[in-house]
């Protein structure tokens, strides 16, 4: 490959903590790799496991879930529930042949802009080491077949 592999990472962030922290990183003009595309949800508790599976099945190289620190959830305990889901999902995606490191959950508060920049940098480094989503490596034809019909 002539060009360096640039991962496509999906970020799913809670509105109150990490999304605000990512905004703060912007306001503070902290520079981090442009590999993450963010979807905003109100709480990481909203994280349907299907979102992660869908993202990987359509070829995302990594999925980064991030919310409030444990104990600081704006909705009391949504991050506990999503942490449990992510722990299980990491095992599940391994069964599908994905390295569990392709899915990560972090806790970044509204005041931790610098931490968000670090988290992204670290995730990008990890995914660069892992290489592209195996489905992409297998080729577009297989990718086509692997994507389940939209049942949602």
């Amino acid at each position: 490959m002539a060009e360096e592999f640039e991962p496509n990472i999906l970020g799913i962030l809670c509105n109150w903590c990490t999304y605000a922290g990512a905004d703060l990183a912007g306001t503070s003009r902290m520079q981090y790799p442009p590999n993450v595309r963010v979807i905003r949800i109100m709480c990481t508790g909203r994280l349907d496991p299907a979102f992660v599976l869908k993202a990987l099945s359509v070829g995302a190289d990594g999925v980064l879930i991030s919310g409030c620190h444990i104990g600081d959830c704006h909705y009391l305990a949504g991050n506990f529930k999503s942490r449990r889901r992510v722990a299980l999902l990491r095992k599940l995606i391994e069964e599908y042949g994905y390295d569990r490191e392709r899915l990560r959950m972090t806790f970044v508060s509204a005041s931790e802009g610098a931490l968000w920049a670090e988290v992204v940098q670290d995730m990008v480094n990890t995914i660069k080491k892992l290489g592209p989503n195996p489905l992409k490596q297998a080729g577009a034809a297989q990718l086509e077949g692997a994507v389940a019909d939209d049942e949602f």
Partner: protein
Amino acid sequence: MDEEKRIGVFVCHCGTNIAGVINVKELVEYAKTLPHVAHAEDYTYMCSTPGQSMIKDRIKEFNLNGTVVAACSPRLHEPTFRKATEEGGVNSFLFTMSNIREQDTWVHMEEPEKAMEKAKDLVRMEVARASKLEPLTPKTVPVEKAALVIGAGIAGIQASLELADAGIKTYLVEKEPSIGGMMSRLDKTFPTLDCSQCILTPKMVDVERNPNIELMTYSEVEGISGYIGNFDVTIRKKSRYVYEDKCNGCGKCQEVCPVSRPNEFDLGLQPRKAAYVPFPQAVPLKFTIDMDSCIKCDLCKGEEACGELEAIDFDKPDELITVKVGTIIVATGFDMYDVERKEEWGYKVFDNVVTGIEFERLIGASGPTGGKVIRPSDGKTPKTVGFVLCAGSRDQDEEDGAKPYCSRVCCMYSLKHAHQLIEKIPGVVPYLFYMDIRSFGKAYEEFYYRIQREGGKFIRGRVARITEDPVTKNLFVTAEDTLLGAPLEMELDMVVLANAVVPAESTQKIKSLLTLSNSPDGFLLEAHPKLNPMSTTTDGVFLAGMCQGPRDIPDVVAHAAAAAAAASIPIHRGSVTLEPIYAIVDPEHCGGCATCIGLCPYGATELKTVDDKLVASVNEAKCKGCGTCGSACPSGAIKMQHFTNEQIMSEIEAFAQGW
């Protein structure tokens, strides 16, 4: 939704913030190629009046039924563009925002090509979301005409008086037996040298007298549920073991009480009894029995003490009170940095090293010495006194729990202490060891000059070490005079450590009850640091005073009044509009498995029988819209409005079109 989607995309330049990094014209052309996009356009400042008018006009011109604004963060301008969309005749929930500033051009300004790519992806994802959005109608709910103020220092007192004067029933809750907070411990206030008690006690008395204020001292907030306009608050009124309605404050119980223990109000510098009021001007002037030290000798109940009043009851239980309020002000104040952790200064090791707040009590007329300044070791009058400024402030030493920020009051109160010493002790020399003197307020710099003229000695440098002569108990202070560039050692009679202001321990509980956040310094986080320093991200909850960050008394009073004004707005308006972001259940698909019931942190989900079938339902008023239930529902029967599976999945699919 059979109507064909016609989406308008509006790209903001934000001056050069966005347009200086990416090519906005290219982004507009790209947006035009996306499905459902009927129109795309750019403008220098989308949030300006012409920018907003453009949105309204184009909605009509192109018959749009959805809008996407690619600009700053939705946390900043979502309300602005929702309103513009609504005014253009389209439901405001058919608008969505693409964050290409905070999360793109500002963080990738060194890689403009990649920022451009990302902007296209982000716009495409939001357009996909917009194509799936559904119109929603906000709910209007009435607001309870009452407010809660937590903490009765000067911030809570000021806020309560403002609210009460505006005709609002106000519950003021204070955990200590008396209101007054830290200000009641101060002797004088800088730079005017007003007697602190003299200006505070009239306000304390006003609080007690005001018919709109219900004062609950020796009480703590235990639970808060609900939302703006309708908070249910549970307050524990700790037992004083004294009936407040019977106690007349005569103090005979205190006279006969044989127990002696350090008075917390005086930082242990003088004793109090087990039956006590923290200080003579306490409000309310009702005695409290400290059951931890009471030996139950019953002397206080005897004939020569409380006797016929029968105000004392050792079995009096705590009371739980519930109140309903519309808005809440948090005014929980601050703690002082535990300067014992700075071992080099020998606090609590050497008798003659004291903290700033202890010095307030030593020099205060109501303090243990009646205002006569003496050395704690031998009771002699000190002739040389050192003041260590920034004791725990402006200090990067995290191991000692020191704080990197400026505590904003220590320079000025140390100057005040120097002045008071000079006033009281002829020939005394105060030495102030400082980094910078920060005298930023009205008449503060003038006060600094005054202390220079009066004979205060200023040494620019940090104190590295304090040691003690074991015989004389004099202190040897080692420092560097950075202006002379020379090390320095001097023998002083006494040293005052101006310790830092730190977030209050007790704020933590309130923080989690109200799901507030804190800033990196540990103080409570405001909604906006400049434009909304008295609000929080929890609607209906406001901040007053030092719980939000260090500030001096005039700033605390102004902040508290601002919080009171903000807290009174929803109450006076009488109703608030709630976001229609709540979950709904489709009874046809619900299997009644009850998975969602245990997951809801607010108890908003419940099982009901509909058409002979057990199904879940969501109480819209209780639901706060986190969506946890929706993501766990095995049959996909729960729809999280504005964040539906369909909407989020469409974003993920659009994301995948980037490669």
